[in-house]
């Protein structure tokens, strides 16, 4: 009842146009209604809002005055092993963000003054033996708490005002399984949802729902092991099938459904050849890996799913990427990029409505049927060296970071990555038990596409049809998230360390600034004290960006991979 009253009060405040002040005393609790209301002064979830637009409705900074954008303040978190990869959040003028080792900072959004900082005590011996670690990609906010996952398998709730732990729940036996949490959680309807790492490890990757108030686990969803999924794993390989869901999903409040993407099966590369249904390291389609899931937020029960890549043998999982929820012509759509560089368009029950490629170089399939989502001309490997390069590279046709949908222009701004790899598939001994390290199944090296050098590109496209309005190219693939704004801007933090602002309608570059470190995390905008700010995390390093120095040389040779900064901009005039 109290929750309903607070919701009503918030709704009235928003309806009357009352801006939320940057004062703790004025702050309203954060619940699903507030997140759904999507006040542009805030940025309450990893994807900006439940509809995953990565879009700011603020207009103070716009295409006409962005040339006057300059640094307002900087925060150096320190100990940024493998850079900064997180998405800042803002509520009531207070910015919250995470750094490596799941450290959390609360900062006055107007001044940059640190209000509190939290450093969890981690299992150092475990962290030392992890490969995809110790970076953290963000937090969630809800019910007066900041939620953050850890690489040693815990979800921690901190008091938003003090940074003191409220609860600390162990969810994964990371000491045995090696995997933990690097992705941001999602808060919805009193539940905190978080997905484990898993794709590269012989484990059962899971998605968890935790009671936001008590910290008690409400449910878990095994991405390799429910009853109907087991039949799709020959030789009981579901027991060590990988999967997991290492990036945050989205929430559809109309149906109380959590959308979550799952990771790939292991070994990443299978030697089955064309007989993957009956032969190879993991015979069958391997449900529910490389899939999008619709889970009931209260129970975790599977409501619907679509497996984007049945028997994924390319490590092109469905875990990364936004779930852009929009309506057109009375039809609800959910747009979700697959790591392969194909963009899947669904209705709100994951029925395929269209599939279109954002990358120019792909040969893991000849195509994906836009009507059914069926893979056409899939390329399955026998053991041995492959004659032709595989495109895209294992790092994907798109990054784990997110694109942006701008409801004012109707365009979807998304980065594509054009790179390939030489591949030798190795018939490895079957793994039958959880293993402490990766299970790749191949040797490989990065390679340029057949028709030219590696590059990246920002596309402005119709999210449903994929029709391209404009494209801007970059000499190396940008890895960070993109943000568009109601000020007709698109911001792209690139890998060299430059933040670009483009005209959202034309793609014309309007402003740049060098942050001094490559970007591979979030960018967002908020308002504090009546002033608009743009915040971006800079700091390079990790499983993808560590390839940049050997592949591209140049600035990447000397770029630190253990440093980072949160850089916040505002208008100087």
């Amino acid at each position, binding site marked *: 009842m109290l929750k309903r009253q607070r919701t009503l009060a918030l709704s009235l405040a928003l309806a009357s146009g009352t801006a939320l002040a940057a004062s703790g005393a004025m702050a309203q609790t954060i619940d699903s209604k507030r997140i759904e209301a999507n006040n542009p002064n805030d940025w309450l979830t990893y994807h900006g809002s439940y509809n995953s637009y990565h879009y700011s409705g603020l207009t103070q900074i716009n295409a006409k005055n962005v040339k006057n954008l300059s640094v307002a303040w900087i925060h150096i978190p320190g100990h940024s*092993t*493998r850079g900064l990869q997180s998405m800042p959040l803002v509520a009531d003028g207070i910015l919250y963000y995470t750094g490596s080792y799941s450290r959390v900072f609360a900062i006055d959004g107007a001044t940059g003054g640190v209000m509190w900082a939290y450093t969890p005590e981690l299992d150092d*011996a475990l962290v*030392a*033996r*992890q*490969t995809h670690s*110790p970076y953290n990609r963000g937090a969630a906010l809800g019910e007066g708490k900041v939620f953050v996952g850890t690489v040693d398998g815990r979800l921690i709730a901190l008091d938003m005002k003090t940074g003191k732990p409220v609860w600390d729940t162990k969810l994964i036996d990371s000491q*045995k399984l090696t995997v933990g949490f690097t992705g941001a959680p999602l808060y919805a309807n009193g539940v905190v949802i978080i997905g484990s790492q898993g794709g590269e490890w*012989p484990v059962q990757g899971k998605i968890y729902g935790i009671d936001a108030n008590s910290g008690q686990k409400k449910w878990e969803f095994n991405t390799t092991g429910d009853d109907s999924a087991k039949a799709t794993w020959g030789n009981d390989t579901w027991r060590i099938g990988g999967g997991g869901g290492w990036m945050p999903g989205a929430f559809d409040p109309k149906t109380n459904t959590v959308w979550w993407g799952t990771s790939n099966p292991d*070994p990443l590369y299978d030697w089955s050849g064309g007989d993957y249904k009956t032969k190879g390291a993991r015979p069958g389609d391997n449900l529910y890996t490389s899939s999008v899931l619709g889970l009931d937020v209260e129970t975790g029960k599977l409501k619907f799913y679509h497996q984007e890549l049945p028997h994924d043998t390319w490590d092109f999982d469905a875990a990364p990427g936004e779930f852009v929820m929009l309506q057109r012509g009375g039809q609800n759509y959910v747009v979700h990029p697959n790591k392969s560089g194909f963009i899947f368009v669904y209705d709100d029950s994951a029925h395929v409505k269209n599939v279109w490629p954002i990358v120019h170089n792909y040969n893991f399939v000849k195509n994906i049927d836009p009507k059914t989502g069926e893979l056409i001309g899939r390329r399955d490997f026998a053991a041995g060296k492959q004659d032709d390069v595989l495109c895209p590279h*294992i790092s994907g046709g798109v990054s784990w970071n997110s694109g942006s949908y701008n409801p004012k222009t109707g365009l979807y701004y998304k980065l594509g990555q054009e790179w390939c790899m030489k591949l*030798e598939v*190795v018939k*490895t*001994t079957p*793994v*039958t*038990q*959880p*293993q*402490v*390290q*990766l*299970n*790749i*199944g*191949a*040797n*490989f*090296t*990065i390679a340029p596409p057949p028709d030219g050098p590696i590059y990246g590109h920002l596309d402005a496209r119709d999210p449903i049809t994929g029709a391209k309005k404009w494209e801007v190219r970059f000499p190396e693939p940008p890895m960070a998230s993109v943000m568009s704004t109601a000020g007709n801007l698109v911001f792209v933090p690139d890998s060299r360390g430059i933040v670009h602002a483009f005209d959202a309608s034309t793609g014309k570059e309007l402003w740049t600034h060098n942050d001094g470190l490559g970007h591979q995390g979030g960018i967002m905008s908020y308002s504090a004290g009546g002033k608009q700010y743009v915040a971006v995390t800079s700091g390079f*390093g990790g*499983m993808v960006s*560590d*390839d940049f120095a*050997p592949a591209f040389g140049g600035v990447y040779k000397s770029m630190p*991979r*253990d440093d980072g900064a949160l850089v916040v901009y505002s208008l100087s005039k």
Partner: protein
Amino acid sequence: MKNRALFLVVVSGLLGFSWSSLAQPVDQTSHLDVNQLFATTCGWCHNDGGRTAGKGPQLMNTKRSDDFIRNRIKHGKEGAMPAFGSTFSDADIDKIIQYIRALKPEQP
């Protein structure tokens, strides 16, 4: 120790290697198939079985000493390489070092 046991169970492929010629005494025979190890775990960073540089350095023709390599495998390097000290026995690590020392360019 438990992890090491698990790893030894899952990584098979006996090579029948004799350890009598190693400088350091070993307490057991390693059953590690290092070729497979690179294809499952090491190769993401040490490309082409360690023959070319990737995220990690090229291992073929490395000038590093056995002690340096042994220490790096055991303890890792923060932010760059995991520590495998709880995964591999001394005998396993010696076998990995021998694999590295024997690396040759692949024939076209």
